């Protein structure tokens, strides 16, 4: 099978001089969980946001699910075609506050995939019960805790039956005691064979669930290793320093 994501020599800068992405090459295989780690400002968000066209890039090649994106100008329709097949979960959940939980999840299936409302709602309820929050279907986002909101956000992304899920620090905005309920949901997705790219600082999650760790600094890929190697015996001095820092916290 061809890779789900294939990025070759991606480069991007927001302003002159500072490279947010510096010659980044990476591929994600079907069913793989790629964990992206690195200090703040190292370009993790920028990288995964290029995967669904939220950010453009300046040079290099990018191919998502067999659709190749050009640097800079892409047809909007092409990007939307990718987005229908790639889900994304944000740090701040970004649920729609004026819609109920059920409406949050069924919006895209109804409006984008043109599904019947009944079918979409049935599917949404299944997803919600998988996330363990079926009882909240009629509530509004502000009535839910952060962990519950993030699980709704995952269900919303899953409702389009994506082939790839992108997570940008999904637990960083949560209270510590709420982190695991979200990570557990992601673990289950991984065991079901979902292809995922996860930006996170959760070492245990990365160790247990990650197939590979991508470590970035200053826009560059410092190393790509299996968790065993990365956490016990990182190849690079910079990686070891970073690990020491987050272990201290």
């Amino acid at each position: 099978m061809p890779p789900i994501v294939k990025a070759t020599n991606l480069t991007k800068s927001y302003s002159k001089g500072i490279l947010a992405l510096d010659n980044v090459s990476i591929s994600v295989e079907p069913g793989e969980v790629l964990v992206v780690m690195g200090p703040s400002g190292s370009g993790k968000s920028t990288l995964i946001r290029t995967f669904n066209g939220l950010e453009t890039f300046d040079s290099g090649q990018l191919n998502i699910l067999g659709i190749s994106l050009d640097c800079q100008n892409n047809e909007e329709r092409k990007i939307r075609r990718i987005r229908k097949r790639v889900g994304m979960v944000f740090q701040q959940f970004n649920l729609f506050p004026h819609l109920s939980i059920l409406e949050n999840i069924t919006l895209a299936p109804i409006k984008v995939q043109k599904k019947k409302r009944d079918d979409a709602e049935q599917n949404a309820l299944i997803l919600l019960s998988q996330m363990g929050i079926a009882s909240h279907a009629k509530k509004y986002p502000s009535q839910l805790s952060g962990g519950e909101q993030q699980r709704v956000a995952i269900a919303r992304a899953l409702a389009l039956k994506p082939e790839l899920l992108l997570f940008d620090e999904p637990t960083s905005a949560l209270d510590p005691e709420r982190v695991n309920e979200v990570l557990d949901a992601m673990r289950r997705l991984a065991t079901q064979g979902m292809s995922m790219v996860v930006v996170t600082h959760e070492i245990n999650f990365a160790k247990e669930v990650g197939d590979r760790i991508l470590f970035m600094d200053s826009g560059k890929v410092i190393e790509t290793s299996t968790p065993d190697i990365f956490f016990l015996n990182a190849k690079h001095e910079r990686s070891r320093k970073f690990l020491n820092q987050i272990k201290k916290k």
Partner: protein
Amino acid sequence: MKNRYKPIKYIKRVAFSNKLDSIISLTIISFGLVFLISLVKWVIFSANWNVVRLNLPLFFFGSFPNDQLWRPGLWISLFAILSFTTLWGPPWSWLRKNLPLLWVSFAPIGVFLLAGGCGLSPVESRNWGGLTLTILLTSCSAIISLPLGIALALGRQSALPVVKKLSSIYIDTMRSVPLIAVLFFGQLLIPLFLPVGLEINRVCRAIIAFTLFVSAYIAEDVRGGLQSIPRTQQEAGEVLGLHPFQITYLIILPQALRIALPSLTNQAVGLLQNTSLMAILGLVELLGIGRSILANPEFIGRYIEVYIWLAAIYWVICTVMALIARHLEQQMSLEKKDL
């Protein structure tokens, strides 16, 4: 809530909690009482309400043909029924779902009932007047300027430079011109710009002028709402593969309008009050009809009665509008209430 059952305690707490408070409260209350007593005395003993009593049909319907009075009558009753149902009606969901639709069709129904056609005998617009005309001017202008204002607000944020620039120029120009000038423009200049033979009646021209003016203010209120929606909402919609158009009308606008609702209410109340400016320009809406009645030698000098009466009508309508707006706000916040 608790205080409702202990009014005396409540009054004590808010008005007489210490010496200074008590002195201030007493002064205000005694001034208020003196004013109220003399007003009531005047209303009951000195005022001559004949000027209102004999002209009731004029105040409500203007010089609408006598045998057709049921038409504006029906329309104003519809207003009263709709308001009452919205505020205190039963919470049946089919009713609540269709109420907005009824409100939207309220203005077109009014135009049909007043102008006639399709089986109703036509009545010329110079016979429209009084409260009917005031409500007609307000509802028609409001119903057209809301979508126009939203379009302008979206235009001002558009990615297309031409659309953006034109919207900005329009909004800023309208907001720097006094309303009365726009109204004069509507009455005096619009006919000059129209091709010969095409004629728009004065009520229509007034509605156009109000719409042009108010939509610029609505646009700014809506823009305030739009700007307070975080950019991440847009992204969340994009990531789901929604079309930009869908993102705007399913995600951004509903939230922005909620935020803009209080200022939009102000615009609506302001619009109602500003329709009285048309009295200067010769329309006999509520204030205009009052002035023409005062010009009648039979009722000479009865200014105070007429103006108190007019003030009372305006007050009732404005209060109803404010109540409906508050009801709407509550409905909307109910849907996202914080527990």
